């Protein structure tokens, strides 16, 4: 088999963008785990929520990308707010089992509710940008992918600034590092937990909205991703945000390469096989466990 270098670069670029968008999901999952000590199994449905919000907002705003994306992020953040206020805030500190049941239950309800409301048919989403793109020589990348990757990078930079420079973000790291010490210095755990959930779901909504014009939008899209994202969080080292980002980018690249050179049917199995191997070799993840480490 000869490998066309152009094709490889093309796959790499696509994989990079996909990986950055996965990272948005994994980072949110990791943040919620750090602050609330739970795994939000409904996280994937927020990706779907963001994607459908984008799908339905685009025609409303005349296919304009930016306002539709902004609306989608806000709608998902509102969903996160409700998730916290209605469900997660009622969990006690050692309610891990209840948190699993609640978030899995919510995930299933949201998934089937959406199928009922909008049907399971995958949708192709069009924006003002269409399938235009930039071409450098024979390598071509669509604007929607380029913007998606750029938005993810901007989101990580803002998140880093938030977590290290603002009291809002420092409080999240503080709770993740030592809950009792957080109470000692006067932090309100409930407020910080709510902020973490809203922020994480907003990041997930951003990923969904950015993915909508790139991939098919369907109710099941979050389910495909949540277990991958969960694995990424563990591979990156539980609570280790840069680790989760690195693992997600690696996954995006790997998926893109596998998908480009082998039949698509192998893609999912290969991804999970690789992740299982990594975890067998490095049980604490590639980058070690950390407690919401920003840098």
């Amino acid at each position, binding site marked *: 088999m000869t490998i066309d270098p152009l094709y490889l670069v093309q796959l790499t670029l696509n994989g990079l963008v996909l990986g950055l968008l996965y990272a948005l999901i994994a980072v949110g999952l990791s943040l919620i785990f750090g602050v609330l000590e739970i795994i939000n199994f409904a996280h994937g449905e927020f990706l779907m929520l963001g994607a459908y919000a984008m799908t339905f907002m685009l025609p409303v705003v005349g296919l304009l990308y930016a306002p539709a994306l902004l609306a989608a992020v806000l709608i998902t953040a509102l969903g996160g707010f409700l998730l916290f206020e209605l469900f997660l805030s009622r969990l006690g500190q050692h309610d891990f089992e209840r948190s699993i049941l609640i978030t899995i239950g919510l995930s299933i309800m949201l998934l089937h509710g959406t199928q009922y409301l909008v049907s399971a048919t995958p949708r192709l989403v069009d924006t003002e940008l269409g399938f235009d793109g930039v071409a450098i020589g024979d390598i071509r990348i669509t604007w929607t992918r380029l913007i998606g990757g750029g938005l993810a990078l901007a989101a990580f930079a803002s998140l880093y600034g938030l977590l290290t420079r603002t*009291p809002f973000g*420092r*409080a999240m*790291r*503080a709770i993740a*590092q*030592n809950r*009792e*010490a957080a*109470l*000692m*210095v*006067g*932090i*309100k755990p409930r407020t910080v937990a709510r902020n973490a959930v809203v922020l994480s779901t907003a990041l997930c909504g951003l990923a969904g909205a950015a993915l909508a014009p790139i991939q098919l939008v369907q109710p099941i899209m979050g389910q495909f991703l949540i277990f991958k994202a969960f694995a990424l969080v563990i591979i990156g080292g539980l609570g280790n945000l840069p680790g989760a980002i690195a693992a997600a980018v690696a996954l995006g690249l790997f998926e893109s390469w596998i998908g480009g050179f082998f039949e698509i049917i192998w893609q999912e199995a290969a991804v999970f096989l690789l992740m299982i191997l990594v975890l067998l070799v490095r049980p604490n993840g590639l980058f070690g466990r*950390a*407690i919401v*480490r920003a840098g």
Partner: protein
Amino acid sequence: MAPVPDIVLALEGVSAGYGDVAVVHDFSAALARGSITTLIGGNGAGKSTLMRAIYGTCRCFAGHIRFDGTAIEAEPPWQRLARGVGLVPQGRCNFPRMSVLENLLMGCYTLPAARRAPAIDRVVGLFPLLAPRLKTTAGNLSGGEQQVLEMAMVLVTEPSLLLLDEPSLGLSPKTQAELFEVVRAIARTGVTILVVEQNVRGALLISDTAIVLDLGRKFLEGPARDVMVDPRIRQAYLGGTIGQQPAA
């Protein structure tokens, strides 16, 4: 007429614990402004639980906790901190992946921005060993240094009531003596202190009052120098040296 003592903290029939289980029962006491009180009791007697009840990090089932005359038992910890109640809990209680300076900044979490830098300067002056360590990651400090850092993190808010749960744990005898000196100096500035100490003798030496807790109930209360010579206390808590052990 005898002067009315200025009571900062009054506990009236307090029962406190976790879940549905009370650990401390019907506990009453009053702390005068600027005094140092030692809470003595065996392992599991409920000393830490009582401290948490005063700060609001465990449940208070019955009774009143009055701080400066106001009942605070229903308030969350951050409101009590804003009133001037500070608790340095037992065990490791800092942010291990943040630098010492960041930890001190977290201590200032409830302070307005303008007050943070002077507050940090003040506590670093109080604990000079922190000065060369400001950039060190807290988790890399020695146990004693971390203990001092944790006290500093609470002192930045200038609490008027300071609750110290086993502050000298893990400190060398020399640093223990220094710590007791600092506690005494803080009390001289008018801060009221309630301390639980594994070094009972050292704590009694700087205390005005001692309260003995047994199985969650008050067993004895009196001036520290009287409690120190009480045969029951000597036997149970001060028999650290063989010479003082009663014949079996």
